[in-house]
């Protein structure tokens, strides 16, 4: 057991070691072996725009969703129980509908057939555009952010705000010294989760983006349609690498933030119970 602990299989760095041994090493070995089988067929340079688009659009929509979802979570925390229930229900409803159906609904909402117009028809230019994909993906992510941030928002206790006011803090200052430090770690987590979800999106880039902004998943399908399973797998590998890099970056920022605001975000030792 001690040996396992020393090797990091269990304990703090255990998951990292397991990931390395059973995930990264086999995939990297396989990818390395491909260099002989795919001479002169570099996949990355030809798919840079797909990887770039996937990352950029996913991060933009996740950021929008993080802002929207965290705002609604705060609103729910400081509203009456009834309003909070209504908001939670409103966030749940989209999750009960099929994802593809929601995408088609957006196409329907943004277009007009003859004289049949919807309130969103004037925004029809959003279809087949980058902004359209960002908007639709952000709306899809808002409930995820809401449910993740709601947990953190439940720790925003009124006595903290009362104490800050007693010490002469304005509402704005209270937001920056209490609300933001407490909510940001969860919001960052929600942002990372949404971005990672978005990176693998396939339907929205095609239906809302009109095929103008193919994501990595669309590229994977294109390679498979050509019978190039290795190329598809290699693209999948790039996607995985992008996910690891993004998740790592967010983890670093989150850890830095938690350390910086340790007095507020860490439960004091004298409160702990045995």
């Amino acid at each position, binding site marked *: 057991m001690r040996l396992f602990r020393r090797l990091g299989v269990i304990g703090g760095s255990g998951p990292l070691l397991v990931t390395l041994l059973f995930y990264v090493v086999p995939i990297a070995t396989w990818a390395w072996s491909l260099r002989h089988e795919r001479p002169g067929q570099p996949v990355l340079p030809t*798919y840079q*725009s797909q990887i770039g688009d996937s990352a950029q659009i996913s991060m933009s929509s996740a950021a929008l969703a993080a802002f929207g979802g965290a705002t609604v979570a705060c609103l729910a925390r400081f509203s009456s129980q009834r309003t909070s229930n209504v908001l939670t229900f409103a966030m749940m409803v989209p999750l009960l509908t099929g994802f593809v159906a929601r995408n088609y609904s957006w196409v329907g909402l943004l*277009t007009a057939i003859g004289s049949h117009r919807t309130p969103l028809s004037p925004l029809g230019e959003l279809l*087949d555009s980058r902004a359209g994909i960002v908007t639709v993906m952000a709306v899809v992510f808002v409930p995820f952010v809401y449910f993740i941030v709601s947990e953190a928002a439940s720790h925003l206790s009124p006595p903290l705000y009362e104490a800050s006011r007693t010490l002469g803090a304005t509402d704005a200052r209270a937001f920056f010294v209490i609300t933001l430090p407490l909510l940001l770690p969860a919001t960052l987590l929600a942002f990372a989760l949404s971005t990672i979800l978005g990176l693998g999106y396939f339907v929205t880039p*095609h239906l809302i983006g*009109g*095929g*103008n902004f193919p994501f990595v998943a669309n590229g994977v399908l294109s390679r498979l349609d*050509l*019978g190039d399973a290795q190329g598809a797998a290699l693209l999948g590998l790039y996607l995985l690498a992008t996910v690891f890099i993004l998740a790592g970056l967010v983890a670093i920022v989150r850890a830095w933030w938690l350390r910086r605001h340790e007095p507020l975000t860490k439960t004091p030792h004298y409160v702990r119970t045995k």
Partner: protein
Amino acid sequence: MKRISLLAGIAGLLALVILGAAKQLPEITVVSYGGGAYQDSHRAAFISPFAAKSNVKVNSTSWGAEYGRLQQMVRSGDVSWDVVEVTAAQYSRGVRDGLYSPLTRPIPPATFAPLAGGPVPTPFGVPNVYWSTVFAYQPKAFAHNPTSWRDFWDVQHFPGSRALYDNPRGTLEFALLADGVARDKLYPLDVDRAFRKLDVLRPHVRLWWKDGTEPVNALLTNRVVMSSAWSGRIYASAAARKEIQYTWIGAAHELDYWVIPRGSRNVELATEFIHFASTAQPMAKQAAATAYGPTNALAFSAIPKTVLPNLPTAPENWRVSFVVNANWWAANEQKIMQRWTIWRSKR
């Protein structure tokens, strides 16, 4: 007493399961090239009548004629499709690559009469339908109607967004026609010239469609003002027939084949299905629904007279259009598709 009731209940359930298993019908899966109205026409004309006649369960599904997908399926040995509709180029490639099983018996000449100079059934496949990609437009968008692919590329005189099929087959030909190449001089395709011409139009292409329903909807909702489109999808929709216009000038005709993928576990039933789908009545029924051209000359007498002028094979339509050269595409499809995929992924 309770135990007897329980045992009787279990026995009853078992009997139901055994009877159900005994009554399970033989099953095949038929794959149409394209979903939506086209697949519906297959269901109505071929699949449901065949299922009723032969007491067979026929699953209907669709694909986008992605050759690599079929190739992977056959090579993996896990073949879940029994009858597949492929393009003429893919038929040739598949025969060359050994992807298809031969039919267990040939099509009887009494039930299938080829068109004059048209394709004939072979041991590996039966020509099924002539279909067309046409140049469609929203007439309300223009003072005078566009008439050719040259107009499609002319965004100054015919402003507005365009939509094109996300596939080089046909699209490269349209680019060359727009660039002044004569219909009878298209092949071998000058691929570089076609891509250069596509580069010019690319900023105005708002939608790269994959499914035949998309261009029809895009035109109906004014998302685009011009698009390449499958003629049958416009014909099959009453709203589209009313609102959208299309021209046969420069239309690309293609031929599809029914084939049986190698490794299918139901070759006999698949052959039976292909035999049925190649007879006159079902072909006529499908033609009436989609206005696509049957390959069996015996079918024409059963097609309503109002439909005949809308078929790709109608003499006046045939004269002003071209047939996609299946042999050229069979030889070049793989590398052109590679180039297309890369071209589409770059901006």
